[in-house]
């Protein structure tokens, strides 16, 4: 009997047992499946609490941007390719800021309230455009925040160009980072669960074929409203959170950067995967901070990196890594010798 060895992909025998019910036979196989699934949880914990104090602030922003990217990716996988996440962010920020400043609500009320009010106003803003598809929808979402920004500037409502300052702060950086991390987990796992549920399949179907959804007896307008409410709600929470983190609110909440970052993160990480945008945000957030030393030249480096990513890895980082992970091989005994095929 020959003792030749051949290479075999690790996931093969695991998959052969059954495709989706994991029937595990060894610690190694358990580790093979569990480690990548633990990464988002453990990785975030390490990032949040092991980085030096200055970088904690960066991590808070990164986590919040991660949520923005998740929201963008969710909306994009419903066929709602938005170029205006800044709109949702700003509406959440202004709602929470106003609730805190004018109504005097404490922080633990103003953030949820700001999220809710922001999401309702956001959905109302987008509602008239729901008949549009593809690029037409995108362009309108790009216009609305720019328009509202000038409205705030001209009319001087909510402090106009100076904004509102002196909002209630968070109790401390540890609380802030823990809250943002928990919110990111909830967003990430919540959206994943949603997309995998039967109800979530309707959102997937919306992008694949909205006419067939209509022919299935479901109103596409009503489900788009729900998708926008969920997607914008996440961004509104980000806005409300950052308002209190910065203790001020201003026109910068409408900045185009806030619309671009989620898209960049999704492109780098891999669109339509939810893990991808999270990964992208965790790479791009600290990266843009690290490039701060270059002054305004950092935009060039940042843009060149992005361009390289898009050209070299159009599918995104996560699908690439996932594929490579599935291709990891190990040596196994081949008792009958190696066959020709």
């Amino acid at each position, binding site marked *: 009997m020959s003792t030749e060895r051949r290479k075999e992909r690790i996931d093969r025998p695991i998959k052969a047992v059954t495709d989706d019910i994991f029937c595990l036979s060894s610690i190694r196989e358990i580790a093979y499946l569990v480690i990548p699934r633990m990464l988002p949880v453990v990785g975030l914990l390490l990032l949040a609490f092991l980085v030096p104090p200055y970088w904690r602030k960066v991590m808070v922003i990164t986590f919040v941007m991660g949520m923005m990217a998740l929201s963008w990716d969710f909306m994009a996988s419903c066929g709602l390719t938005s170029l205006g996440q800044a709109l949702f962010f700003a509406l959440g920020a202004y709602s929470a800021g106003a609730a805190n400043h004018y109504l005097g609500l404490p922080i633990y009320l103003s953030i949820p309230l700001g999220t809710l009010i922001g999401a309702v106003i956001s959905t109302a803003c987008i509602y008239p455009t729901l008949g549009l598809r593809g690029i037409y929808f995108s362009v309108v979402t790009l216009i609305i925040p720019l328009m509202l920004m000038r409205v705030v500037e001209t009319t001087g409502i909510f402090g106009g160009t100076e904004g509102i300052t002196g909002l209630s702060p968070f109790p401390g950086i540890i609380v802030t980072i823990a809250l943002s991390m928990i919110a990111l987990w909830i967003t990430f796992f919540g959206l994943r669960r949603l997309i995998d549920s*039967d109800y979530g*399949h*309707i959102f997937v*179907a919306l992008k*694949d074929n909205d*006419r067939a959804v209509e*022919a299935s007896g*479901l*109103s596409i307008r009503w489900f788009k409203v729900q998708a926008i409410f969920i997607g914008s709600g996440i961004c509104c929470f980000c806005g409300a959170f950052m308002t209190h983190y910065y203790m001020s609110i201003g026109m910068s909440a409408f900045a185009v950067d806030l619309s671009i970052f989620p898209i960049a993160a999704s492109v780098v990480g891999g669109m339509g995967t939810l893990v991808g945008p999270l990964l992208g945000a965790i790479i791009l957030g600290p990266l843009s901070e690290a490039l701060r030393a270059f002054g305004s030249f950092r935009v060039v480096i940042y843009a060149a990196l992005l361009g390289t990513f898009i050209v070299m890895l159009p599918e995104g980082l996560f699908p690439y890594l996932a594929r490579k992970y599935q291709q990891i091989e190990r040596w196994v005994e081949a008792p009958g010798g190696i066959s020709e095929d």
Partner: protein
Amino acid sequence: MEYLKIENLRKTFGGVVAVDNISFEVEQGALLGIIGPNGSGKTTTVNLITGFLTPDSGKVMFKGRDIAGLRASKITNLGIGRTFQMVKPFYRLPAFKNLVVPLFSPRVKRMGGHYGEKDTLALDILEDIGFERDSAVPYKPASILPHGYLKRLEMARVIALQSELIVFDELYSGLTLAEVASISPMIEKLIEAGKTIIMVEHRLKELFKIAHRVMVLDQGKKIAEGSPREIMKQPSVKKAYLGVEL
């Protein structure tokens, strides 16, 4: 009261009159075939009945109610199901999950009668329609299924919706003779189950075998209506198809 009665339906696109004052009736439990050369307004008629287009004028009376201009989803929930000529599956979803979407519709919820988990139910419907249950086919994403299966998936959607009036828009196009031979009995079974069917079709031979009545359209106008036997003899029909008087 007529089951489905179309009165003076008209639709123009710019200067083109796609559907020009068409009127016809369908009795409950009947199978009406709509035929005609390319561009004669067959699919436009279907879109007008099912709400995917709004007619310029005219009425679509379904069980005594004018449904012209209602939203497509609303009409679907009233019991008019349709398939598309160009298949429209949800590509990213597995085949059986494609049926979970119609199973969410208000109509299915209201009708009740569907017992059990949505997944099981979807698999049952797919099995009836010719997906091998124990194979991997129902679990594959729709994007990698062959055309024949996607056509069946279109049919499965109206079955999942428990539609009482079903409009098939060129169901047979792109199917092999064997596939048509396996789908035709399913349509006859639907008729036996009391459904009313409108079939827009180019495959005349197969259609004439099962149709009770046939309507012929040409350039947006109705030029003939009658039993398949009568229609085949009409000189105007031959002229519309062949362009010459025989």
